[in-house]
């Protein structure tokens, strides 16, 4: 350690101070900037005003908006237009500093099923517009609506996934070639969900208050999910190695572990889906039709198939409670998502949730592809066909929910 002692002698700075020095320096710079505002002369521009509407609540003859200043400058909300008419309103605090939020209430005899255009007029005359596509009563979080949203989650998440799990007995009897086909089908299906999740996550990121940077939240969720699942998988692997349980052919993890990983990825996707459907329903963007629910149900049934696909080649049949657990992991988050979306939706949190889902799905896809054997993999004839079939099937059933 001669070199090290020489260095410390030369600099004569204790180690901890060395770490602290840059921190002190940046703190000093920040203080100086805040005190003297040296670039003030560069910014003699009109204020940049931006307000994001984070939540809309429609009550009988009353509209409530939760708004946040997501621009760089303070904003004062001076007047409110509802359907192009100045309307009397009450606001908790009309002057919003950067990132500050406020609640705005307006009495307005809005009509069910018609669009509502709301525009806030700031003190500088800028208008911030917010469109409610289809006005509908915002559900209150009471017993019956909580039950309705739970039922929604069960219809579009839990039941379809559970139904899909019943493909397991047939898969057990299938040849290796066909199991390869169904694994490839699962990859296609998850690939479709991944694209869907990323697209929806980006859209939510766009709706997030700009200052909160929804895209970063999405990325944070995605990378975090990949890292967490990788660590989780390694943990499982270590435990299994010590017990030396048989392995799926060529796969680094057992079929059951892979099934759980797939169920987790799908569950996180369904959490996001529940959020989106719940929020859209509460926000009046969609009307809850039978067709829409059936669409989601058919769409999601294939998710059950995806979960049991890696179990097909396992010699032993997992005990029944595993199937119940797999179904719960994949389907139940839809209920939680629907509640979250319906009663406490915020685009920032949703963007984060979609990021987590995207990361989880990507990780699971990678896991499956890694485990597939060469001769029955994606590049085999039947494998490629399965991949295409998975994508196509999701596309077609997706049309039902569009």
């Amino acid at each position, binding site marked *: 350690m001669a070199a090290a002692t020489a260095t410390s002698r030369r600099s004569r700075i204790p180690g901890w101070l060395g770490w602290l020095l840059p921190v002190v320096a940046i703190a000093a710079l920040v203080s100086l900037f805040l005190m003297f505002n040296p670039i003030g002369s560069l910014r003699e521009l009109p204020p940049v005003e931006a307000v994001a509407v984070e939540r809309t609540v429609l009550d009988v003859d009353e509209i409530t908006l939760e708004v946040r200043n997501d621009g760089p400058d303070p904003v*004062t909300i*001076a*007047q*409110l*237009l*509802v359907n*192009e*008419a*100045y*309307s*009397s*309103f009450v606001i908790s605090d*009309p002057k919003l500093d950067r990132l500050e939020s406020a609640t705005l209430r307006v009495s*307005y005899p809005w009509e069910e099923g018609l669009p509502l255009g709301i525009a806030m*007029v*700031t*003190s*500088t*005359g*800028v*208008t911030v517009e917010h469109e409610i596509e289809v006005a509908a009563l915002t559900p209150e979080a009471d017993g019956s609506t909580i039950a309705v949203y739970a039922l929604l989650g069960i219809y579009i998440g839990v039941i379809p996934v559970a139904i899909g799990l019943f493909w397991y007995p047939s898969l057990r009897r299938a040849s290796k070639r066909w199991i390869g086909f169904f694994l490839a089908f699962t990859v296609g299906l998850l690939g479709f969900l991944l694209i869907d999740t990323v697209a929806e996550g980006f859209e939510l990121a766009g709706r997030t208050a700009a200052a909160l940077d929804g895209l970063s939240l999405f990325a944070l969720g995605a990378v975090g999910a990949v890292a967490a699942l990788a660590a989780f998988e390694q943990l499982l692997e270590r435990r299994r190695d010590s017990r030396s349980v048989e392995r799926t052919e060529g796969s680094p993890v057992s079929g059951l572990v892979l099934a759980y990983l797939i169920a987790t990825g799908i569950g996180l996707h369904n959490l996001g889906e529940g959020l989106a459907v719940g929020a859209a329903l509460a926000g009046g963007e969609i009307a809850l039709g039978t067709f829409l629910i059936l669409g989601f149900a058919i769409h999601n049934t294939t998710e059950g198939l995806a979960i049991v696909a890696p179990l097909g080649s396992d010699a032993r049949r997992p005990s029944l409670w595993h199937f119940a657990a797999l179904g719960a992991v994949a389907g139940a988050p839809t209920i939680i998502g629907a509640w979250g979306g319906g009663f406490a939706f915020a685009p920032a949190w949703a963007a984060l949730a979609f990021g987590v889902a995207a990361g989880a799905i990507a990780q699971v896809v990678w896991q499956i592809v890694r485990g597939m054997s060469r001769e029955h993999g994606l590049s085999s004839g039947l494998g490629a066909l399965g991949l295409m079939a998975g994508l196509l099937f999701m596309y077609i059933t997706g049309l039902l929910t569009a």
Partner: protein
Amino acid sequence: MGSIEGNFPTQQSSGRVGRRRFLRRMGATSALGGAALLGGHEVLHGSGLITHAQAQESGGGQGDHGDGHLGGTVGEVDNERNGFDPHEILTDFDGGEVSKDSSGRTVREYEFVTIDKEIEVAPGVFFPAWTYNGRVPGPTIRATEGDRLRVRLVNASEHPHTIHFHGFHSASVDGIPGAGESLPGESFTYDFIAEPFGTHLYHCHSLPLVQHIHRGLYGAFIVDPKQGRPDAHEMVMVMNGFDTNFDGGNEVYALNTVAFAYSKKPIEINAGELQRAHVINVTEFDPINSIHIHANFFNLFRTGTSLEPDEFTDTISMGQAERHMIEFTYDQPGNFIFHAHVTEFIDLGWLSAFEVV
């Protein structure tokens, strides 16, 4: 938004503003020379003075208008801060500085200073206006047919401006780029004879024209016929709009600039007294504006250029720069609203009311 019916203030229109206005008017007139006072302001302002003196006598006190009113905006516009009050603009006829030239012709001299100024067009909503003498609409010029007008434009703003009068004048004082445009820091005097008689307007004609008009450079230019008109309570109503977010459409519509100014505090008029309103449309971006009075009809004098009415109606539409003189009388006391019958403008500020006493 509150319902239209039954939301009128129950107490009498504030006497406080009337008194303040009265005092200011007295101060303004006494500051002028005696001859000018007789020849100009005093005569022109006669009816206005009487009305407001009466309002003061009847002692309405400080009416409480907080209990609900017409119009959907929240809060009040600060007239002091704006430097002008829509209720004063209504009856603020400016005869200028009056003298006689060698031939005995009445000469009216004005000084218009263009000032860039932020004005409050709806409570809390500020608009970067360009103004003549710090107000929108600019001063109401009032002359008699044949008077000589000398209007000096002093440009204290950051852009070139003109005053273009609707009326007869020579090409050299047309008030367009190249003929009467004054650059920032410069001045120009428009010298012409006021004719024909009628309800007219003036506005800036520098380019780009939409900006120069819409930002607030316009006003009423009233020329009385030589033989005069019957006594009446006269008002100037400039129908205007403001594109506060500069997207090519107005967010605020009004009479004399401030949204809902006359619905939140109705215009007090006397039952049985002839009312004469000079209604001028300077609304930008919308091709048509209109006026409709409730529970009454008016005699319409198109452009105010005749002594006999052209029509008897209760609604009249006007294109840009169109203007008419309307006469009506309310026989019964009560509150009567009047507004644009381009109904979308009502919800955006062009809603007014008379309180007939």
